[in-house]
């Protein structure tokens, strides 16, 4: 089966990505998806106007492929669909779409949970929060790291 793992430098349309996943999911009984949005404030409460997601010319795409492929190997899913922003993302805008289709809902839920826990720690991005005060590089949180360890 095929997976889609795409870097998107323009805005992400949740409707378009959902439609693509539904198209790739013919004959299954369950489709699950997650959307991550750029938060309007940092962990310390400062206003964030935009996130800047920097990528590597080849390694970022490769990391998305590896994570999507790992989900396909591990779970009985018939489709996996990941779309991830690069570049400038305004607060409130979608950063990532991760979805999966399976015969039954448990595998689809688990596959998307797996995708997000791995995307949050292993995907090769460097993110900066930018607000009126300053610019701050982000690292995975302790919660992100703990989530990754579950697998």
């Amino acid at each position, binding site marked *: 089966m095929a997976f889609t793992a795409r870097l998107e430098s323009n805005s992400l349309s949740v409707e378009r990505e959902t439609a693509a996943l539904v198209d790739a999911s013919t004959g299954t009984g369950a489709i699950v998806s997650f959307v991550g949005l750029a938060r309007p404030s940092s962990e310390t409460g400062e206003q964030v106007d935009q996130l800047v997601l*920097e990528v*590597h010319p080849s390694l970022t795409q490769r990391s998305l492929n590896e994570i999507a492929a790992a989900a396909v190997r591990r779970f009985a899913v018939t489709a996996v669909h990941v779309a991830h922003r690069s570049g400038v993302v305004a607060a409130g805008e979608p950063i*990532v779409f991760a979805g999966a289709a399976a015969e039954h809902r448990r595998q689809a839920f688990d596959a998307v949970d797996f995708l997000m826990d791995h995307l949050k720690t*292993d995907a090769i991005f460097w*993110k900066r929060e930018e607000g009126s005060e300053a610019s701050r*590089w982000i690292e995975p949180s302790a919660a*992100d790291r703990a989530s990754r360890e579950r697998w």
Partner: protein
Amino acid sequence: MRISFYGRLVDVFGSDLQLDVAAPCSIGELRERLQAMRSDEGLQDVRVRTCVNGVFVTDSHIVQEGDSIEFLAPVSGG
């Protein structure tokens, strides 16, 4: 030798620089030299990864003339 940087390392070193390096030179030695140039210890973070010609390598890797060397700051994740 052309060396590129990603993530917060760019703030210290710029996105890339040219360096004359006498072979043989290991990645570990290169890191120390760069740190001395900028009086910065960002490269000492064990989570900084190094790529040579698109492949992840360790500090003991010996670089050759013409190699493309990249230092990747700890990733933020997606």
